[in-house]
């Protein structure tokens, strides 16, 4: 009598977590999930919506969810703002060179850490992990004073070099992860076949690290593209990047939100696109290995 009851109860409980979850509960959770997704994405949507609104629609007592008369005026005025094009060019130059330098230096460093045992290796790893956490605004005072001393402020060279500290640690860390996963037997096979060490790196490890290089480059791009406080402090407006330009276009009262949101959209676009391409790697780079089920 009791046994079938217990068995039925057991089945019911298993179903509660398993495949046959109760329908009404799922519907409820779905509603909560959709509500969450909408609330989360609303500010992003509002940025886009404002960017396409004419000025009289931005400043209205009853905000419209969708632009009634969509226009590109805000984008035009953002593009024609003084220094926008210069700062866009600066952004591209600084990003390109700091990411390239970071990749070259970082690949060599990652090779050392992933493929060799040497004195000070663990300390090096600890430094690379910790340096990603150092609030760089704290380092800005000595950096400014040093760069100012050698006349590297108000120049693109100074920031490009400085940005290496944003790019390099993560690049080393990510490439190390890729190189560690290349079987050592491949290196050994190449050595047996008569390659020397340099050829092994060049012919075996470099091609296999390809995806890692792409991911590290994109991550470095996002880091340097998003930075504004260092460049704002070191340089004048003609040597700013787009983010610093954007920051300077905001005032405490009376900001022209339409053009600002258009500028924000243009500035965010490359970052969002690149981010979506490599998001897997970013998430795992910071926490990798923490889940070994």
């Amino acid at each position: 009598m009791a046994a079938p009851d217990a068995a039925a109860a057991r089945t019911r409980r298993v179903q509660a977590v398993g495949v046959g979850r109760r329908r009404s509960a799922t519907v409820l959770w779905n509603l909560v999930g959709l509500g969450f997704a909408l609330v989360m994405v609303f500010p992003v949507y509002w940025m886009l919506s404002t960017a396409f609104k004419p000025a009289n629609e931005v400043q209205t007592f009853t905000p419209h969810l969708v632009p009634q008369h969509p226009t590109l005026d805000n984008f035009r005025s953002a593009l024609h703002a003084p220094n926008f094009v210069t700062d866009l060019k600066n952004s591209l130059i600084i990003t390109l060179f700091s990411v390239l330098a970071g990749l070259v230096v970082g690949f060599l460093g990652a090779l050392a850490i992933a493929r060799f045992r040497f004195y000070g290796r663990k300390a090096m790893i600890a430094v690379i992990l910790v340096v990603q956490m150092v609030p760089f605004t704290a380092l800005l005072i000595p950096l400014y004073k040093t760069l100012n001393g050698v006349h590297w402020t108000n120049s693109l060279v100074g920031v490009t070099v400085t940005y290496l500290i944003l790019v390099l640690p993560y690049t080393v860390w990510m490439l190390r992860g890729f190189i560690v996963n290349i079987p050592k037997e491949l290196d050994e096979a190449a050595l047996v076949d008569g390659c020397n060490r340099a050829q092994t790196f060049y012919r075996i490890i470099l091609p296999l690290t390809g995806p890692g290089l792409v991911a590290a480059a994109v991550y470095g791009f996002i880091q340097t593209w998003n930075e504004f406080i260092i460049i704002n402090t070191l340089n004048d407006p003609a040597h700013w990047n787009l983010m610093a330009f954007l920051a300077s276009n905001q005032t405490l009262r009376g900001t022209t939100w339409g053009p600002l949101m258009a500028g924000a959209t243009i500035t965010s676009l490359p970052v969002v696109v690149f981010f979506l391409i490599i998001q897997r790697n970013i998430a795992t780079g910071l926490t990798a290995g923490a889940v070994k089920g």
Partner: protein
Amino acid sequence: MHAVRTPPRVADGLSAAPARRRRREPTPYLLILPTLLVLAGLLAFPLAYMTELSFKRLTLRDLFTGGAGSWVGVANYSKILHDPFFWTVVVRTIAVAAICVVVSVLSGLLVALLMQRVSGWVRVCMIVSMMLVWALPQLVATQVFTWLVDTDWGVLNWLIDKVVPGVDFTNHSWFIDLWQGWSVIIALVVWGAVPFLAISLYAGLTQVPRELQEAAVVDGAGPWAVFRSVTWPILRPLVVIVTTLSVIWDMGLFTQPYIARASKPELDYYSLAIYAYQEAFAKSNYNTGSAIAVLTVLLMIGVMALYARQMFKIGDAD
């Protein structure tokens, strides 16, 4: 003859020699050298220079002539440590960071659990919306939030006016009252942090074997008991790491209050990082600014060590 006398030694020598040679090889040092130089130039040297500045005093004359200033011992530190405003900022920074960390990690965990319970297409919607938020540059996110709570035309004032009966939020300024202002900033930080936390924790949850959960249910465990005894032990290391990261990020809070106040933050909106920055670059007090920065780094160094230790412990940093 030779061979007969020495075979064991030769074999030993062959296996031992390459290993010893590898250990003395200069290659790894050459490879790591550029990285080392960058870290020395952009990390070690600035840290040392900053510490030096914090024990010195530059006069106005030094600032213009590039003079080195004079040693003043711990004068900068004692000045700061005796300033009640410094302690206000310290307490505020820690309190804000604590709220941000607790709220964002808890929300992240709840969202991750929610993601397990919804249908596949809803999960995709959630992930896409969170990815867009995650990808948005911090500066842009702050500007968008400032626009949402704008005094004159902000959509939040309009919404509160409409939804909550009996209040007048027309032209309500959110940053006059520092509690309201910081609430907006905390909401912004949490909104920006939840995607990383929820998606990482959801990835962790998928590692929890379904059979274990089912076995626990069969044994009579309720949902809370299943979470505590099955899910949590597997998720714990990941939660520790994301929490540590959140503590480090939120203690270094700079962009959100600084940009929300249009790069001219009032004293009420200072965090430690902003305090050090303003001291140095708005008031040209490089020495007090350096001392504050040194104290900030010291305050955070324990958490950073914890993060590095955790990464070594799980064997990922090996």
